[in-house]
C-alpha cells in the first residue's frame, strides 16, 4: 500500500520526537547509531532499529526537509581513529512535526478510557 506523500509513518514521527528530545538535552546533532539507541531506550527494547529501516526513514525525513545532514569534518574521525559520522539536525519543520506528534500522542492517551476495577 502506498502512503500519502508527506505523511509520516510512526518511525519517522518517533525519530522527530527523539531528535527534539535530544535537542532539549543540548545535543543538536545526532548520528544514525545514536538515534537507533535513543529510539531503543524510548521504546524500552533491547533490539535496535534495523539498518535498512532506520537509514531509509532518515533519508525520507531529509527529503521532506524535516532533518538535514552533513558529514563531519574528516579530521575528527581521523583523530579518534573511527569511521566518519553523518550528522543529522532537526529543522524547524521537523520540530513542528515532533510537536504535532507529541500533541497527537497526548490526545490519544487522554482519550483512552481508564480501566475500572470490577466489583467483587
Amino acid at each position: 500500500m502506498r502512503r500519502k506523500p508527506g505523511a509520516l509513518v510512526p518511525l519517522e514521527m518517533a525519530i522527530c520526537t527523539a531528535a527534539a528530545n535530544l535537542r532539549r538535552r543540548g545535543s543538536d546533532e545526532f548520528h544514525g547509531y545514536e538515534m537507533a539507541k535513543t529510539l531503543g531506550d524510548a521504546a524500552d527494547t533491547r533490539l535496535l532499529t534495523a539498518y535498512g529501516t532506520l537509514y531509509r526513514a532518515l533519508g525520507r525525513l531529509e527529503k521532506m526537509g524535516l532533518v538535514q545532514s552533513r558529514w563531519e569534518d574528516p579530521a575528527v574521525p581521523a583523530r579518534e581513529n573511527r569511521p566518519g559520522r553523518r550528522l543529522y539536525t532537526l529543522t524547524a519543520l521537523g520540530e513542528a512535526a515532533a510537536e504535532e506528534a507529541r500533541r497527537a500522542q497526548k490526545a490519544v492517551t487522554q482519550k483512552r478510557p481508564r480501566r475500572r476495577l470490577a466489583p467483587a
Partner: protein
Amino acid sequence: MDPLLFSAIALVRGWTRLYTSGMEPGSRNGRRAEIESDLWEFHEDARRRRYSPAGIAAHMLLRLVAGLPHDVCWRVESVDEASRARGRAAWLTANAAGVSACVAAAYILFLVTYLVSLMPLPDSARVERTFVRTARSLPPPPAPLPPPLPPIR
C-alpha cells in the same frame, strides 16, 4: 576478533555492497559509509557494555535481516529518482538544443540576407538586354477585342 562477530560484520558489509552496487556514487558511498559508522559505533558501544561477541553478532544479524525489505525499497526508490532526474536532464537538453538550433537558423538567415544586400546590383544595361531578348522570344500579344455593339432599341 571472534569468528562469529567477524562473519556478521562481513555479512552486513557484503549485503550493503550488494544492494548499493551500480548506484550513483553519492548515494552508494554515503550509504556504505553510514553503515560502516553504525557498525563501528555499535561494536564499540556493545564492547563497553561488556556484551559477548556472539550477542553482538546476533544483534547485528537481526538488524540486518529486519531491514532487508527496506534496503531493497530504498534502492528501487533511489534508482527511480536517478532515472527520473536523467529523464528531466535529457528533456532539458533536447529543449535547449531545439532553441539553440532555432536561434542559429534565424541568425544564419539574417546573415545571408545581410550579405546579399551588400552585394553590388547587376549591371543595368545587361539586365535591359536580357529583358529585351526575353521579350523578343515571346509570342506576339493577341489582337485587341472589337468594341462592343451598340444596344438594340
